[in-house]
């Protein structure tokens, strides 16, 4: 067998041995595998949409199909890829950092499969039936049965509901792991642990003036786990709102299917838009920012081997970000004329501007933590972390600009929103942070598998960074020239920008292909298949031979 085939089948230097993995390691890696598969779905789908923006191909991407793809694209990207990667990493990291077994391995397994099946259900339904209300679901579009089949919509909503059930199980597992008392352990102070994780200790220190003299040793829960707990609060609230909206839409669908059409005017479209955006924004302006800040702190700490700079203020900023995330939704309604001006200015502009402060603090604290520990080797995890930091440094100010009443009047629903803000935040900021975490966790989760090619990792980094920033930039330029999102242009109105954005998109695909080849060659095909064989080791073991010690 040639060296290439040998590596492809058995992995680099045969270093990866799946039979040596604990159930927790295997489960986490399965989350990563499915997260990357769905990233591939979203990336290929995004590239097809992008090509259609260069030159519409009506015979293939006719409007119904195009908008069905546009509906599935962000949902697969967020729930199928980002949620699975983040939930997988945190399902491992929470017990790993707490030095305490996961509350329920079975629940973590259910979370994985519910999300995998749920995402596939709504993606496949959209592919077959062209149900296309977009992720925004503006009332009464999802219940407009002149345009969409109610059965198609009902299957789509069931898919989303499965994802939400999986999500709620993740929330349960995180908080139970924090607070429960494992068998043989001394009674854990559940209330105090929970309060500390959610920021009550810091709040008490601020209110009593003891903030100045407080230190990390005062806390029962470390900074990264506190970030995970606080972000998980937004995961919970978001899942409740999406589930509630889904049930409402489902009621209309069931009514239609059973011949009892319900009046869509019974639901106030603006009120609906407010509660839906309140919930939806807990992802974009809540859990993503909190989780990302927490991950930056963890990565910076692991890379440098030092404590996080100004850790008490980092904690404070995480709590502030959580509160801010509950009150910023109105920036999505700055162009809704019936929305009260008080909400537009208060929630839409001023509170939203706090995100510049909270993210700016996380950015600064992470950079200083790294800077103080110099000289550092430019490892894969470090360079991807810097890429992630740059992504948010570019995307957050773009978001603050569109969350301005004056600018929103000429930016709302243009490619500016989805380019320099959304795609740069998700692809460069979030995804590069996640890649950094993947590079940190890879040797831990694989018991020392050796990365196949540093050159492929470098190509992955540069193609992803340049492609992500380039795509956002060219979309933004088109947006400033008036190009809308969520529509089709048939007369080549913005073609030069779209060609450049498509070339940038192609770089992103090349980056992903390099990463995928590198991982497959690192683990080998037999290694990848081996992940799905049951581990003989006890589920309490996080790493081979490491069962968390009981704490009195």
């Amino acid at each position: 067998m040639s060296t290439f085939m040998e590596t492809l089948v058995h992995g680099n230097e045969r270093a990866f041995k799946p039979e040596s993995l604990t159930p927790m390691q295997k489960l986490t890696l399965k989350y990563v595998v499915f997260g990357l598969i769905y990233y591939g779905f979203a990336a290929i789908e995004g590239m097809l949409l992008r090509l259609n923006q260069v030159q519409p191909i009506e015979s293939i991407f006719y409007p119904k199909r195009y908008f069905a793809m546009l509906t599935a694209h962000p949902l697969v990207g967020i729930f199928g890829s980002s949620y699975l990667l983040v939930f997988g990493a945190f399902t491992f990291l929470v017990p790993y950092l707490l030095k305490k077994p996961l509350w329920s391995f079975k629940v973590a397994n259910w979370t994985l499969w519910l999300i995998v099946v749920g995402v596939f259900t709504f993606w496949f339904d959209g592919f077959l039936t062209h149900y296309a209300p977009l992720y925004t679901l503006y009332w009464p579009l999802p219940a407009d049965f002149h345009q969409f089949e109610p059965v198609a919509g009902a299957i789509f909503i069931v898919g989303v509901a499965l994802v939400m059930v999986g999500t709620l199980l993740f929330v349960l597992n995180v908080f139970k792991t924090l607070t429960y008392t494992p068998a043989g352990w001394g009674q854990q102070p559940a209330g105090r642990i929970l309060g500390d994780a959610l920021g009550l200790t810091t709040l008490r220190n601020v209110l009593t003036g003891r903030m100045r003299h407080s230190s990390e040793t005062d806390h029962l829960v470390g900074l990264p786990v506190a970030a995970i707990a606080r972000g998980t609060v937004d995961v919970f609230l978001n899942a409740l709102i999406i589930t509630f909206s889904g049930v409402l839409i489902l009621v209309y669908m069931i009514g239609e299917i059973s011949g009892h059409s319900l009046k869509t005017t019974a639901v106030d479209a603006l009120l609906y838009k407010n509660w839906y955006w309140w919930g939806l924004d807990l992802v974009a302006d809540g859990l993503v920012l909190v989780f990302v800040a927490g991950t930056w702190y963890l990565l910076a700490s692991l890379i440098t081997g030092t404590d996080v700079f100004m850790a008490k203020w980092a904690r404070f900023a995480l709590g502030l970000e959580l509160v801010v995330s509950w009150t910023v939704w109105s920036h999505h309604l700055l162009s809704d004329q019936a929305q009260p001006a008080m909400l537009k200015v208060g929630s839409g502009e001023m509170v939203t501007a706090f995100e510049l402060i909270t993210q700016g603090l996380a950015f600064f604290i992470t950079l200083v933590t790294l800077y103080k520990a110099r000289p550092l080797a430019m490892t894969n995890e470090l360079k991807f972390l810097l890429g992630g930091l740059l992504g948010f440094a570019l995307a957050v100010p773009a978001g603050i600009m569109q969350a301005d009443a004056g600018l929103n009047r000429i930016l709302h629903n243009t490619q500016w929103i989805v380019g320099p803000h959304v795609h740069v935040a998700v692809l460069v900021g979030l995804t590069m942070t996640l890649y950094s975490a993947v590079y940190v966790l890879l040797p831990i989760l694989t018991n020392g598998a050796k990365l196949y090619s540093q050159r492929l990792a470098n190509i992955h980094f540069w193609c992803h960074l340049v492609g992500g920033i380039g795509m956002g930039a060219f979309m933004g330029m088109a947006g400033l020239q008036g190009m809308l999102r969520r529509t089709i242009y048939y007369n080549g109105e913005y073609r030069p920008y779209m060609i450049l954005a498509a070339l940038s998109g192609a770089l992103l695909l090349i980056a992903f292909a390099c990463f995928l080849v590198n991982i497959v060659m690192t683990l080998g095909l037999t290694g990848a298949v081996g992940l799905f064989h049951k581990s003989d080791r006890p589920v309490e073991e996080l790493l081979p031979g490491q069962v968390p010690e009981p704490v009195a």
Partner: protein
Amino acid sequence: MTKVDSHTVLWGQTIMYTAYCLAIISVMAWFAVRITKPRSSREITPRVFYVWVGFLVILGVSLHLFTYNTIPWVKDDLHGSKNFVAAYDISVGDHKFAWGEGNPQLQVPCGKLVKFSVTSTDLTYGFGLFRSDNSMVMQMQVVPGHANDLVWTFEKDGVYSIRSTEYSGPLGYQMVEKDAVKVTGCGQVDTRALGATR
């Protein structure tokens, strides 16, 4: 002197954001090189952190104060000014705009406050005015069951198309009314909005 319109504002934004992007990319590139080098004697103190916090607070708040005082439409918009000289009622339903027999070209006075009132009979749509080069003048959301009123002062003469700016299903992309609005009276012509088809 050229009046400030959406085109001017967007140019200002483009210059500022591009400058910022180039600056932050340069800083990060410098930082990436710097952290691989041995440390110097100078250390970062908490004082630098507090200065940074102050800078962020000032920056966050001042952006909105700056735009409130420099972008011409913000005050009328947020205060819902009633001093308009003309009002235009437009209805949207079944993916079509309608405002009278055959949708005649709307004649709008330049340099004076006017009001566009758009109502939807079924779905959530958008209402936007666009120049002949497809750049945007302004837009708003059109939510069913609510008044959707936008007051506006045109600073230049021109001919503008109406386009729905919100997704309303696969038919929504067709919602364009070419050269539906004609603005006259300022003398200064918007050269990007000359119109052609009506």
